[in-house]
């Protein structure tokens, strides 16, 4: 009994960490730009591909083996710096005045474009980049052995969560972003360069998605279609916690991670079902999510 609980707890935590990394960026982008970015799944996939390529390149040289871990943040940064501004300035900014429906459709269009773009660049065959995963070895918790890499994932998620939270609450730029989330028009009136901040926030969100993908790459076979599955899960997390809320993403990820682990071990057929069931229950009780704010209906 206790063993099962420990397994569920650890599995859930690992899964939650993974979910949190992806959901955080989605939530941030929604908070600042009010756009639900379906292409977030593509950024995740791009991060994974970039990381797999870089890890492969690094492995072919005869370098310090642990340096391979640097490739992961590097891949995430590359995706964020290249794709983020390009998408935000090139396409999304034209969508801000449009109805939310069209914004959603535009990000879906982007998702389709990126799906094929990754296929063009990396081909359709799965890519493997196990080096960072196997290098660390395994650790025993109770009777179960876990790869250290999974715990590294949990650590990374925690550090990223703290960094983003410090950035948002303690730095000037972070506070400006909060002001924009609260009231974009007033911030503009106060002289905040809203377009510049939009690019920044969007790019940070993209880096986070890329990091989620880059951290995942060593654990799986990187192949087409991986972005399509992630976006639904990330959305469930973000809705559960409340769109645009940092704490919400963390709590949502934990809740879904633990519940999923529990069902996988106890009732495997219900795996997907349970995630949406929780989302359903939370939304019935709190339609804007756990940390979401009620919006006033305007005439």
């Amino acid at each position, binding site marked *: 009994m206790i063993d099962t609980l420990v397994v569920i707890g650890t599995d859930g935590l690992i899964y939650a960490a993974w979910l949190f990394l992806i959901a955080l960026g989605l939530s941030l982008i929604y908070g600042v730009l009010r756009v*639900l970015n379906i292409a977030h799944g593509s950024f995740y996939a791009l991060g994974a591909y970039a990381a797999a390529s870089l890890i492969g390149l690094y492995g072919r040289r005869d370098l310090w083996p642990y340096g391979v871990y640097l490739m992961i943040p590097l891949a995430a940064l590359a995706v964020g710096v290249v794709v983020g501004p390009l998408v935000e300035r090139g396409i999304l900014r034209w969508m801000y005045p449009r109805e939310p429906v069209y914004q959603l459709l535009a990000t879906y269009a982007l998702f389709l474009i990126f799906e094929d773009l990754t*296929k063009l660049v990396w081909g359709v065959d799965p890519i493997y980049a196990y080096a960072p995963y196997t290098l660390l070895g395994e650790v025993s918790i109770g009777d179960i052995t876990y790869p250290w890499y999974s715990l590294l994932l949990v650590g990374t998620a925690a550090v990223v969560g703290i960094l983003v939270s410090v950035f948002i609450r303690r730095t000037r730029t972070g506070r400006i972003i909060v002001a924009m989330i609260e009231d974009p028009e007033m911030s503009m009136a106060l002289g905040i360069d809203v377009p510049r901040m939009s690019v920044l926030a969007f790019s940070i969100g993209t880096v986070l998605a890329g990091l989620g993908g880059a951290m995942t790459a060593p654990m799986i076979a990187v192949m087409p279609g991986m972005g399509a599955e992630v976006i639904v899960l990330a959305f469930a997390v973000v*809705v559960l916690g409340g769109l645009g809320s940092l704490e919400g993403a963390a709590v949502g990820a934990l809740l879904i991670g633990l519940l999923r682990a529990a069902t996988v071990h106890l009732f495997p*057929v219900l795996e997907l079902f349970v995630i949406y069931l929780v989302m359903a229950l939370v939304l019935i009780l709190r339609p804007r999510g756990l940390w979401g704010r009620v919006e006033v209906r*305007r005439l």
Partner: protein
Amino acid sequence: MKPRAVLIGVLSFVGLGAVGFVLPRWTVFLFSLALARGLAALSVALLMRAGLVSFGQSLFFATGAYTAAFMVRLLGVREAGLLLVGAVIVSMTVAALTGLWIARYREIFFAMLSLAFTMILYGWLLKAYWITGGTDGLRIPPPTVLGTAWSVDTLRSVLYEATLVCTAVALVLIHLFLDSPLGYALRAVRDNEVRLEYLGSSVWQVVYWAYVLAAGLAGLGGVLTALNVGHVDPQLAYWTTAGEFVFITLLGGTESVLAPLIGAVVFEFLRTYALKYAPYTWQMALGGMMLLLILFMPRGLWTLRYLRFRKAVS
């Protein structure tokens, strides 16, 4: 309906019906698929009238298709007419249940919740392989149409004509619905739902019934696809299938019941040729086209209809 519109409708119906006996078989097949997809797109368009984007119509599309498969395999029903009615009823029943919950939500919440529902079905179809056949799906043996078992050669044309008749009936019904008070209320939901409530209408009910009706349409599209293809698989329920319906709707437009259908025919032929000549960049082309449509022709191909008038005025 204006007499001219009725005339055009009847003429195109007869024309499309005659085409079924003349054109090569693969074209007829494509037309059948396009019409079935058009019905699913019409269901997206119906909800879009209320300003709601559903990324989950594949839920009902797959429900319709799988209902037919189960009816054939478990109940031994062979008659296409019964399969159609059964599939539509089951789809609408599913919607009557999920609708209780989803009709409260708008915008991205509506979009993503409908997406979540279809992913639940997808997950179940994959996992419960002893019932659903898993990723392989299920084969549907050729049905009888009007109590007759047609030869393999004629069945294609017969199924096409049946698809055409179903589509025509559905179109007329939806057109009448949109002209009814409930249909107008749908547009009012999009414009301003708070005001609609002040006028004494229940916004929830309007959305709910539109959602159930849309599910029936998508279910009909699904069962027609299943019968024409003779096979169902979980991909029908995947959210990217619903994304295709959304694309078709955007391509055609939502102003008329005919617009999504035109979108579907254009889409089906575009896809067939694109898959042949550009298999790896096909989705990219789709996405690019979608962006262009959103930016420059947000009301779809249907806007082309007005080009002539604009020129006459200037």
